[in-house]
């Protein structure tokens, strides 16, 4: 698996940046090359994306708004990835967090102080997502159920469950659409930059990334998770129970994804509706991989996806290009970044061989 690849080292940060940038450029090229088919000049498209995105504070703020939940779902995947587990169900845990945050906010708003409601919604989303995650981890630990399959399926189950709630207990008072009422102003996450819709959510997301980094690399909890991921048998020998790590890693992962639900519901949408951020889970996987599951790197790769999304939306507004060009861009970028991993690996292999022959000749 990918563990093998890490043994071959020898390319530094600069090379990583270069190849990732090359992959992004290639990915954009492959997406834009089809634009002439609908009468959009690819160069114009690029121009529109850059000028519109960076033209005013509002759309630049939008990048941060889009980035916020992506950081969290990226972290969610990364945390289990470090334990060599695959949480493909961040989407479902995100919805669980959304449901909890929306239910708490709607139930308590105007009855208790807004700040307290926010705190409770924050906690509820973590508990909700974490519970779903822990359940998947438990099934893996107790019954050796394939966590990849179970987490994948849990997303669909929760999606329908959310739809059921939105049709019944959580539905708006008008009862017209499958959505909740608007949240009261008092339970919105405060905006932190004037003239934009950037809320406190981005601070929460970045703090979560830093916290995950500290937990993974500077605490014994994270150490145990990582050892389990690297070598289960070694972990067991060292007195670490891999099963406990499964549950723990999934619970934390689910909690982070649930938190994304809180920042989206209370910080951005201010309501909950069906088909809400339907791809945020799979984007998270892409983002985590782009950053090689490094929590700090995830902030930047989420930012990249945020730029692509806002840029793609602008492109849709100012030209004929359909919104699906966003997925096209993100898909190609992910594929080429993965290919760039391979290229870097091959370069590393070649370098090692070269060193061997050089030292061989010297001897």
């Amino acid at each position, binding site marked *: 698996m990918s563990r093998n690849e890490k043994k071959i080292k020898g390319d530094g940060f600069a090379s990583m940046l270069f190849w990732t940038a090359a992959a992004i450029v290639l990915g954009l090229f492959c997406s834009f090359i089809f634009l002439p088919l609908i009468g959009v000049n690819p160069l114009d498209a690029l121009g529109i994306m850059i000028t519109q995105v960076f033209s005013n504070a509002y759309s630049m703020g939008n990048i941060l708004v889009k980035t916020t939940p992506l950081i969290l779902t990226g972290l969610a995947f990364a945390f289990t990835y470090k334990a060599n587990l695959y949480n493909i169900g961040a989407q479902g845990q995100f919805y669980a967090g959304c449901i909890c945050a929306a239910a708490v906010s709607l139930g308590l708003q105007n009855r208790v102080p807004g700040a307290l409601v926010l705190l409770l919604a924050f906690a509820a989303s973590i508990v909700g997502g974490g519970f779903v995650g822990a359940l998947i981890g438990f099934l893996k630990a107790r019954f050796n159920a394939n966590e990849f399959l179970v987490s994948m399926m849990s997303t669909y189950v929760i999606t*329908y469950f959310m739809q059921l709630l939105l049709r019944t207990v959580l539905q708006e008072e008008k009862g017209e659409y499958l959505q909740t009422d608007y949240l009261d102003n008092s339970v919105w996450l405060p905006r932190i930059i004037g003239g934009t819709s950037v809320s406190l959510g981005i601070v929460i997301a970045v703090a979560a990334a830093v916290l995950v980094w500290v937990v993974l690399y500077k605490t014994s909890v994270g150490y145990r998770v990582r050892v389990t991921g690297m070598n289960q048998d070694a972990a067991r020998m060292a007195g670490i129970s891999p099963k406990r790590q499964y549950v723990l890693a999934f619970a934390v992962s689910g909690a982070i994804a649930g938190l994304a639900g809180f920042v989206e519901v209370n910080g951005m949408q201010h309501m909950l509706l069906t088909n809400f951020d339907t791809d945020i889970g799979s984007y998270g996987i892409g983002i985590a991989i782009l950053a090689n599951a490094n929590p700090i790197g995830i902030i930047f790769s989420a930012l990249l996806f945020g730029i692509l999304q806002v840029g793609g939306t602008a492109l849709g507004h100012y030209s004929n290009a359909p919104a699906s060009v966003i*997925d096209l*861009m993100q898909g190609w970028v992910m594929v080429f970044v993965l290919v760039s991993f391979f290229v870097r690996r091959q370069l590393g292999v070649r370098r090692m061989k070269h060193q061997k022959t050089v030292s061989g000749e010297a001897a």
Partner: protein
Amino acid sequence: MEVFINLIARAFFMSTPLVLGAVGEVIAERTGMMVTAVEGIFLIGAWGGFLGAYLSGNMLIGFLTAMACGMAVALIYGVTTVYMYQHQIVMGTAIAILVTGFCSFFYRIIFGTPTTPLTVTPLSDIAIPVLSDIPVIGRILFEQNLVTYLTWILVPIVFYVLFRTSLGLTLRSCGENPAAADAAGINVQRVRFLAVLLAGVLGGIAGAYYSLCNVGMYNAQIIGGRGWIAFGICFLGNWNPVGSLIFGIVFGISEAVGTYVRALGLSSVPSELFSMLPYVLVIVLTVCRKNLHVPDKLGVNYVKEE
């Protein structure tokens, strides 16, 4: 009784694409390759099948287009995982996003934004003479469409090839012990790559089944996780084509029941509960099932010594 027969006939009808996808998955997974791009392959199959059939007015061309499209996606997946050693689950996710974007983008380019949904006439059923006159069973088993019959023929063939021929041994050895297979002169990477392509072709047909046999139209939600269910069926069926057929029918039943209950429009039973039934079923069965024949090196890329 009439309702029951219809329900079971419908269950068999709905099981076909799941079985097809799962059998493709079985072949690939026996060589050690999880085809996690299966959801993307199903989607592009549905898209390509509709495109081909709508533009040519010919079902066969539709299915051929779907096969080509499925194979193309499997090609990207195979090259990056088999020859570039990229992680199989991660690559599958990347491809799912790419295919989602690709299908919507090109549907828009080719058809614009039509005011009424574009449709083709779904593939008709073929009643097999004599056999279809058998009471009950005739209606259920012998009034299906051609793809379903072909799928039923395919299952025993794949079973025979996998477990009774030397080709099958070659395939399975790549999943159980690729290093030994390599030492025995088998080109492990090529075997795996070809198996992935075959899974892509079968997945393409399966996807086209939804657009061409089931609803006769295409939209972005048409697959909605069925590719993953086929993936799950392969696990539950113990990496065996016959097991895939059995579990495919189980899921066909759960889908047919869901459709039936939704059509009844009972207000006392939330229809969402029936919609989530197949997915709950995968979880429950995954938990209950003891995986006995999981290929030893499933999901592990084979890196030749360099």
